[in-house]
């Protein structure tokens, strides 16, 4: 691989017109998009929370549905960022050739990839806020600390967009993304403390979970929703930031290679 692929990202504000483009597209489908953001997580949360929750004792001093609310916020943010950075970005890069059109202007690939990660994180932020509003309305949290969830869902969005863009850079076609969802995203939903505490898992799986970004997101979210300061907050933030920054860099290197031919 040629040396120039590994150059550090040159980031400029020129990403912003691209971000505005996605915003304009999104605005045209805003109502169904918001409903889409909400339907899946809210149905899971209500179904499992009330249905399964009525059979369960309190979890760490809260009802099961309140326990589930924090996890739901995290995994729904993960899903929005992942869908956008895989399917959305792939459509713009490959199918619609939107990137090609943009790169014929004074905008470079580095700006385009930055706009993609920020746009997917924006989608994650919007879906997170929508779910958070439902949680507030249902009274599943009564702490002002839950406002910290807003920057947290953005951070979750950045981490999962960055990892998702690596997949997009490698994908020959849309089918490829099925592997990522079945082998990475779904297992994370089940291993990272969304539906039950990670401590319930065998030790091997606990060790695996500790390396996954969603675990760290949930470890931050759950105390915040209960009005407590998360333990080891810096560690968890650090892990998520590392996924975001390293993922962004790796995806950029791969996109540079892919699009240089």
């Amino acid at each position, binding site marked *: 691989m040629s040396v120039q692929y590994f150059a550090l990202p040159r980031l400029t504000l020129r990403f912003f017109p691209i971000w505005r483009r996605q915003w304009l597209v999104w605005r045209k489908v805003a109502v169904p998009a918001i409903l889409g953001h909400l339907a899946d997580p809210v149905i899971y949360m209500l179904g499992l929370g009330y249905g399964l929750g009525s059979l369960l004792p309190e979890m760490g001093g809260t009802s099961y549905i309140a326990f589930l609310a924090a996890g739901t916020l995290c995994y729904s943010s993960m899903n929005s960022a992942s869908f956008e950075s895989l399917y959305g970005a792939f459509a713009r890069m490959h199918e619609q050739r939107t990137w090609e059109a943009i790169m014929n202007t004074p905008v470079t690939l580095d700006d385009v990839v930055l706009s993609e990660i920020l746009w997917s994180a924006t989608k994650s932020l919007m879906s997170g806020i929508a779910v958070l509003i439902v949680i507030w309305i249902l009274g599943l949290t009564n702490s002002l600390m839950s406002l910290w969830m807003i920057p947290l869902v953005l951070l979750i969005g950045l981490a999962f967009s960055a990892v998702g863009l690596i997949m997009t850079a490698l994908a020959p076609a849309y089918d490829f993304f099925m592997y990522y969802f079945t082998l990475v995203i779904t297992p994370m939903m089940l291993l990272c403390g969304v539906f039950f505490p990670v401590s319930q898992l065998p030790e091997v799986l606990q060790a695996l979970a500790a390396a996954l970004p969603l675990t760290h997101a949930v470890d931050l979210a759950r105390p915040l929703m209960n009005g407590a300061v998360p333990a080891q907050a810096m560690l968890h933030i650090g892990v998520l930031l590392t996924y975001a920054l390293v993922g962004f860099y790796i995806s950029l290197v791969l996109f540079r290679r892919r699009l240089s*031919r």
Partner: protein
Amino acid sequence: MSVIRASGLQKSYAGHRVVDGLDLSIHKGECFGLLGPNGAGKTTTLRLLLGLIEPDAGTATLLDLPVPQAAREARIKVGVVPQMDNLDPDFTVAENLLVYGRYFGMHDSEIKARIPDLLEFASLTSKRDAKVPTLSGGMKRRLTLARALVNDPDVVFLDEPTTGLDPQARHLIWQRLNALTKQGKTLLLTTHFMDEAERLCHRLAVMDNGKLISQGSPRELIESNIEPQVVEVFGETAGQWANEHAGKFSQRYEVSGESVFCYVQDAQKLVAHLQAQSELRYLHRPANLEDVFLKLTGREMRE
């Protein structure tokens, strides 16, 4: 004054030299055509000159700026019509122009002020609020052309601007491109339509296997590469006729299937001879760019 200059440009993909030592100089205000069969390296040449990819060797300047080093700055005054449409399907015609202008750092008010003129130029005024998927192929091409002009560029790159269009749509595009050269803009276009090249371009270069094999005005290319008259001979026995007679009457001839192409300085004797051959049909015409192109790049298919 040269607006685009290349010297010794080289680019290989997977060991195959796609552009092989290309020297080029395009003057301000001219329409320059790059002709070549599929796979000749035309698109790669455009990408190198736009500074979108790094050459393996050689240098290039675009509007006096070195590319790819200062490609970003150079592209502020460049417009591009790509080979395949990449308009935004989610947007209307006017939104496509607005969103694209922003990539050049233009303010919304500045772009909006230009949109009526751009739509008029592209004959799309009535389609202003139509969504892209509802446009015909010709309209999409015109919108792509209007989009390439949103930043009022000095140079416009066009990669096969009329491929896939019907004759009416092609003629409208040609008219518009002529209007652009009249405005003093420099055009660099690739094509494999010879009539397009002959009609539009002040100067042409024929490209094959990554090299420029001939350059000049359409007239010069014809005069310097080929005999002035062509007689095409058709018929089942044309091949046999060619073996026996074609060499006597023509400077050069080629057999392609059941057709024989005779290239001659003076066609009188050949035509007189052919009039006596009842089983053969013939067509006598002046040599054109297509003859030059086929002579230079061969008759074999490129796939």
